């Protein structure tokens, strides 16, 4: 049964998707200028997945994320300033500049961390779900991962345990067609990753990951199922990343995909598709433009904030390895 999405929710989804897009575009721009150190894996093109799924969650629900994690963090309510400051490597960043793009976390918002190891977030999500079940909190955990992660052992181990123990977890596979430069057809024989759910006796479905309503609908049902104690679901969201694997991946991955393919997928961009829905609902173009301006201001402020903040020093480097507080007396 379809859950009715009113235009207020659509507008909030729109704002979040634009926020992710503009956040990533800014990083793209500043990375090219050499202002951002390290690695950056951008989420442009995949925004409907994070926003559609996180719109179905409670504030105290958990997510585990991936190396391509900015979108998940924004969608779960992450603070743009602290995110940006972290990516710039500043003391005011989420991780005091010690984690960077691939390790942003906010435990208070249920964001259990982006993760630099493909597939590693899956068992961690299973453990968070186990914890919620033991504490009887009715919290749900979502684990985001890519198509590449579904060939890791942790995918199998995690889904098997979650199913066996009927845990409140939703597995969201963002199938963007490539594990780095390896196209799906070169890394697994199947087309629909959701069929793997069968072997864990859990529901599995594939949705258009660039259609916010399809993603949201699937997430609402899976989250409801998880929260009511009926166990996990595997949702495959078929989508596409516009940028290369990382900033610096030459010509957006020209070694392994064609420009034509990228252009075809750009026509399926999730943001204009939501704009069309909003216009049908009677929302005026000016209102959407206003949202875009507001979000752009937020992003600009986040960058200004980051540039104003200090870079951690030698004094900071030894801190935070261990928690030295005594639990015992």
């Amino acid at each position, binding site marked *: 049964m379809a859950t009715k999405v009113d235009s207020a929710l659509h507008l909030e989804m729109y704002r979040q998707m634009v926020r992710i897009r503009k956040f990533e575009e800014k990083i793209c721009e500043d990375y090219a200028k050499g202002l951002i150190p390290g690695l950056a894996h951008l989420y442009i093109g995949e925004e409907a997945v994070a926003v559609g799924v996180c719109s179905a969650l409670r504030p105290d629900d958990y997510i585990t994320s991936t190396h391509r994690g900015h979108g998940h963090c924004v969608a779960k309510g992450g603070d743009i300033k602290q995110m940006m400051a972290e990516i710039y490597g500043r003391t005011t960043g989420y*991780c005091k500049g010690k984690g960077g793009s691939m390790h942003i*976390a906010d435990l208070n918002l249920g964001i259990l961390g982006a993760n630099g190891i493909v597939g590693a977030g899956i*068992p*961690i999500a299973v453990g*968070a779900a186990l914890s919620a079940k033991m504490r009887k909190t009715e919290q749900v955990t979502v684990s985001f991962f890519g198509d590449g992660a579904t060939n890791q052992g942790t995918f199998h*181990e995690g889904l098997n345990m979650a199913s066996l123990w009927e845990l409140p977890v939703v597995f969201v596979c963002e199938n963007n067609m490539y594990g780095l430069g390896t196209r799906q057809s070169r890394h697994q024989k199947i087309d629909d990753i959701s069929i793997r759910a069968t072997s864990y006796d859990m529901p599995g479905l594939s949705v258009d990951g660039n259609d916010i309503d399809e993603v949201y609908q699937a997430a609402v049902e899976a989250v409801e199922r998880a929260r009511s104690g009926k166990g996990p679901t595997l949702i495959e969201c078929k989508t596409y990343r516009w940028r290369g694997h990382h900033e610096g991946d030459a010509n957006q991955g020209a070694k392994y995909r064609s420009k034509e393919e990228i252009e075809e997928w750009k026509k399926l961009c999730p943001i204009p598709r939501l704009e069309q829905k909003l216009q049908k609902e009677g929302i005026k173009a000016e209102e959407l433009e206003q949202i875009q301006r507001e979000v752009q201001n937020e992003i600009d402020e986040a960058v200004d904030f980051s540039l104003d903040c200090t870079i951690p020093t030698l004094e900071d480097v030894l*801190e935070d390895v261990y*928690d030295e507080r005594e639990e015992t007396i």
Partner: protein
Amino acid sequence: MTKTVTRTINSHTELDALETVEMSYGEALRDALRSQMKKDETIFVIGEEVGLYGGIFGVTQGLYEEFGPERMIDTPISEAGFIGAAVGAAITEMRPVAEIMFTDFAIMAMDQIVNQAAKIRYMFGGKVEVPLVIRIPTGTGRGAAAQHSQSLEAWFAHVPGLKVVMPSTPFDAKGLLISSIWDNNPVIFIEHKMLYKATGPVPKDEYCIPIGKADVKRQGEDVTIIATLMMLHTALKAADELAAEGINAEVIDPRTIYPLDKETIIESVKKTNRAVVVHESSKTGGVGGEISSVIMEGAFDYLDGPVLRCAGLDVPIPFTPDLEKIVVPDEKQIIDAVKSLL
């Protein structure tokens, strides 16, 4: 419900003044688990055969009946999976105690231990605690061959973010396990599988032994022997034989490899001027090299000879009992090493 353990005991020398009971190393571990699980519902045990079966070495015997399958969680054979799940539970308000059946199987879970558990706190800027204990039976003595007999403490000690605890007596086992459970960091708790049946005096009530404090198991003036787990007992036997010849060895059990109680070791060597480090794990890249360096950095001017290592041979652990015995140090090797320094 209090989360505090008020009594701290630093050394076995305090035992005479306390009410103790004789129990085995395995029973002491079980006693620690049971007492803390009764006290705090966030503590649970997870691993292969820890529940219904009672643990492959019987450590968790009876706890399944007492605490039920919800808190004594039997897992599929999925080391990366259940250690990952333990990490996830640890960062979401629980205090899991995971058991990996053999050290060798921890290798299956190394990503979750090394890349996740150890680093999460630092990567997240200190904004999360990871109160996770991973109990790992280790070592030779059961004819279990190369994939069931390794000692890999040096691997874990090499990873910032982990603590590495290695109790050698029932008294140490109970107090250190309680401390490890209440530590807010991931603790690799290494138990020797040939010690489970070894008995000794253990205080009846609950107590902590500070992580990072060595115990001088035997006092002496002529040489310092540093050893853990089974090798501590081999070293004590060697020390008895040396004493019969008028050589008084001081035997130190670091009890935790990381953090290492450098001070106790250095102070002892300053007194004895000689040191022998003993461990079962293979010599190259072993903890003995680290301890030897600590001594040289802290007591070089006091040394009358090189710091010697008695360690496992650099071979995979062989199966047949005669060979298995040869690959780990015995009393004679320790005695010979000590005498070569005099």
